[in-house]
């Protein structure tokens, strides 16, 4: 038998039959290259675990505590920044209106009433226009199209959900 199958057996490092082992041992006596791979494989198989110095867990605790403290600090900083930004936005947006309310409350209240009234009017006009448009469009759309649109939307939703599921499942390392 030539050299190649023996080298393949060694590089695959899988279990061999008794007969294969005999043939391999005979080959190893004459082949330095295969002997080196065999010796290296043997060294790999003599598993010796390097162990950490005693007190690994005790040394981990302060690290974890420091990380938690840092997280808390970051959260507090984030809250402060958010609140400050919110207050600044509120001041920028509602500042003039608040000033007006303090200076002349009657004018401010009438402004608010006009604003609320205009919002309601706009909403009712939009509703009316929408219903007219729908009525007009319903005559143009063939019967069954609504079902087709709904089925299409549903299929797209299912496709999106399955893609998201696959994407979330794939990588597991942190």
């Amino acid at each position: 038998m030539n050299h190649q199958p023996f080298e393949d057996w060694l590089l695959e490092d899988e279990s061999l039959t008794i007969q294969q082992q005999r043939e391999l041992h005979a080959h190893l006596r004459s082949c330095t290259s295969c002997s080196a791979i065999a010796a290296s494989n043997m060294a790999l198989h003599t598993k010796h675990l390097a162990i950490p110095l005693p007190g690994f867990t005790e040394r981990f605790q302060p690290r974890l505590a420091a990380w938690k403290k840092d997280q808390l600090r970051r959260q507090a900083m984030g809250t402060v920044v958010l609140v400050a930004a919110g207050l600044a936005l509120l001041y920028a947006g509602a500042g003039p209106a608040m000033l007006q309310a303090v200076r002349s409350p009657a004018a401010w209240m009438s402004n608010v009433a006009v604003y609320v009234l205009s919002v309601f009017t706009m909403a009712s006009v939009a509703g009316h226009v929408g219903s007219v448009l729908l009525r007009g469009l319903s005559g143009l759309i063939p019967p069954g199209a609504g079902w087709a649109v709904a089925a299409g939307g549903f299929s797209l939703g299912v496709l999106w959900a399955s893609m998201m599921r696959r994407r979330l499942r794939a990588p597991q390392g942190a």
Partner: protein
Amino acid sequence: MKDERELVAQAQHGSDEAFTALVEAYQTHVYNLCYRMLGEAESAEDAAQETFLRAFQHIQRYDHGRPFGTWLLSIAAHYCIDRLRRRRFSLTSLDDDEAGRVLELPDPAAPSPELETVRREQREQMQGFLQQLNSVDRAAIVLRYWNDCSEAEIAAALNLTVSAVKSRLHRARRELGDLWQEEGSRTNRARRPHESPAF
């Protein structure tokens, strides 16, 4: 020790005690992987601690369908690979054992101190050779031989396909064999001048 699943579930609900029990249970395997990858006791300790910290941070993402140990080793392997990529120069590791900073589990099968010495030398030699492998190949070899991971588990841990793992293991074994052979011929050359002349 409580059931691992239970401990993981408790850790996911924020129990520090449960997570500490998991650190106790897996510290050796994680540390060993980091040591074989980085080749230095100090870096290995730091990397192992960082691995557990990352595991704590991302424990909510852990999928119960997968062994917890493999998930931890995956974090450790990725961290070490990143760290090695950032490293500008290689480090030798053989002095660490001499300095007594690395402890190894005793081999109960060792029949004599002489044989144990030879085996120890071989282990140190192998540790030196490991440092010369590509970082992903090294991770694959360590997971395969020190952590008894299957090819599928290695593939999952290193985000590779099973055939890529097979090919990496194949290449790494060949490289280790070549290094072993080189070292053998170097040792023989070094011994020759001290041998008696053949006349």
